[in-house]
C-alpha cells in the first residue's frame, strides 16, 4: 500500500505542471520525437528535457533512442493508476471479509 501511494504521488507530481500535461496530451496523438515536442513549448531545450525526465521517472511516458533521435511514447496504463485506488480498497475489504467468513465458519473459531 505504501508503495502504491508513492507511485501515485509520482504520477500526481508529474501531472501538476501545464507543460507536462501538454506533453501527455500531445503524445495521445502518437509517439513524437523530443525535438518536435520541444518546438511546441516556449522554453529552452534543457528546461524541456527536465520535464521529459520527470514524466519518464513517473512512468507516464517512456523514451526510446534511435540514432540521434529520442522518441517519447505515452504509457496509457499508467494513467489508470489514478483511478485504481478505490478498486484496491475494495479488494482489501473483500479479502478481509473472506478471511472473517472462513474464520467464523471454520473449526479454528471453536478452538479459541
Amino acid at each position, binding site marked *: *500500500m*505504501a508503495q*502504491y*501511494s508513492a507511485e*501515485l*504521488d509520482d*504520477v*500526481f*507530481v508529474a*501531472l*501538476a*505542471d501545464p507543460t507536462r*500535461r501538454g506533453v*501527455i*496530451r500531445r*503524445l*495521445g*496523438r*502518437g509517439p513524437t520525437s523530443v525535438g518536435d515536442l520541444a518546438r511546441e513549448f516556449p522554453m529552452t531545450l534543457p528546461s524541456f528535457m527536465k520535464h521529459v525526465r520527470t514524466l519518464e521517472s513517473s512512468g507516464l511516458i517512456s523514451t526510446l533512442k534511435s540514432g540521434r533521435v529520442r522518441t517519447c511514447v*505515452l504509457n*496509457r496504463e499508467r*494513467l*489508470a493508476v*489514478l*483511478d485504481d*485506488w*478505490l478498486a484496491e*480498497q*475494495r479488494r482489501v*475489504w*473483500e*479479502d*478481509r*471479509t473472506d*478471511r*472473517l*467468513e*472462513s*474464520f*467464523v*465458519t471454520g473449526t*479454528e*473459531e471453536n478452538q*479459541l
Partner: protein
Amino acid sequence: MNPDLDLTLERVIRAPRSTVWRAWTDPARLEKWWIPAPSRCRVDRLEVRPGGAFVTRLSDDGADYVPHLDAAFLVVDELERIVFTNAIDSAWRPAAAAPVAMTAEITLADHPDGTLYRIVVRHGDPAARALHEKLGFEDGWGMVTGQLATMAESEAP
C-alpha cells in the same frame, strides 16, 4: 454514499451474529483474520466503545511488528454495528491516513442462513488529491484526470 469515493459490500455469513461479533471484538480472534497470511497481526488496543482505540500491528517474520492501523471507534452498537475511522488516530489526533482516510461502518443483521454482513466504507479524497491542491490544479481532480484520460485516448491515431 458517493460512488466515486465510497464502497459497499454485502455478504451472508453462515454463522450466528454473536459469533461474527466476537470475531470482531475479541483481540485473540481478530488477530486470526484481520491481516492476510503469512503476515501476522498483533492487536495492541481494541477498545470497542465510542472513542475507543483500535490499534493493530503486523509482522512478516513474527518478530518485528510494524504499525498497521491506528484508528478510533466512532459508534459501537452491541451485536449490530461498528463504525471506526483512521481520519483520527487512537489518541483522537487528526491523522494523515495514506493513501486515503476512511470511515468504515460494519453492520450485522439476522439472516435465515446466519448473518447479513454489510460494509460501507466512506473515503476522503485520496492523499494524492490533497497534494494536487498544493501543486495548483484548478479543477476538480476527478474531472482533470477524467478529461486527461479521455483526451489521451481520443487523440490516439
